[in-house]
């Protein structure tokens, strides 16, 4: 399953970044900037399938993303709140695109409100079991998308 899903995660992540923020994906083989703090945005989608998605990136990447979306590239100070908001919206859009890419357009999927977590040390951001991880390099920064299908408690 992971082999089938991972390329789709990578494509959706790359396409959304390009279409939304004009951020093009670099060759993964190149060196990505390793930085901290590392932020993680989590969202779930519920329908015929139940999925948790996590997007992980550097705070610096998140700040550049916010600048691009707000039209402030290099010309204004981006607050933590703006940076978080932009990254949550990126996650929201990725989730909507993935729902149709993976499961088609017939079923309705309800998305939760994205939540942001921050890790001072990226090494402490663990990967839950049965998670598929896709990674890209954009603007020199590594961005990861984690995908995990689960069965809700009580069902």
């Amino acid at each position: 399953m992971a082999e089938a899903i991972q390329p789709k995660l990578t494509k959706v992540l790359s396409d959304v970044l390009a279409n939304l923020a004009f951020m093009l994906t670099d060759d993964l083989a190149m060196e990505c900037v390793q930085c901290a703090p590392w932020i993680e945005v989590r969202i779930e989608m519920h329908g015929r399938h139940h999925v948790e998605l996590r997007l992980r990136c550097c705070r610096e990447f998140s700040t550049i993303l916010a600048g691009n979306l707000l039209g402030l590239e290099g010309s204004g100070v981006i607050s933590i709140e703006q940076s978080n908001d932009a990254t949550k919206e990126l996650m929201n859009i990725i989730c909507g695109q993935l729902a149709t890419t993976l499961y088609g357009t017939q079923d309705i999927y309800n998305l939760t409100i994205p939540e942001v977590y921050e890790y001072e040390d990226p090494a402490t951001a663990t990967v839950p079991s049965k998670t598929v991880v896709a990674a890209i390099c954009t603007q020199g920064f590594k961005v990861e998308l984690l995908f995990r299908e689960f069965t809700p408690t009580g069902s």
Partner: protein
Amino acid sequence: MTRDVLIVDDSATIRQMIRRTIQLIDLDIGEMFEAGNGIEALAQLADHEVACVIVDINMPSMNGIQLLRRMKDNPHLKDIPVVVVSTEGSAQRIQQIEEWGASGFVRKPFQPEQLRDVLKPMFGVKVDGGGNPTETDEGAF
């Protein structure tokens, strides 16, 4: 007749992006008001007469679908055109949005032209063919 617009999205980033997009497109739009969810939107609508409401679906407190239904149930608000701008791609959901009375749908991420083409008829500009949404695409209903 008012040419003001209300933008409803819990993301300040998206509200700013829609505001910038509207400034870019060649439509004679007046003031742009903002709200972060459906409850704030209803409060804005109580204070301001607007020509159109642009609304996201996935928001806390009162989401875009709940707002749309509240507006269509309210005799004072039911005739205000509502354009849904959302990540939603489900054909079933888009059909529901239309049935509940939305005037158009634009899927995020969107290009300025897509929003312009949906807003045009609401501001008295003729649409040059096309523009009707397909099952999973966007456009004016």
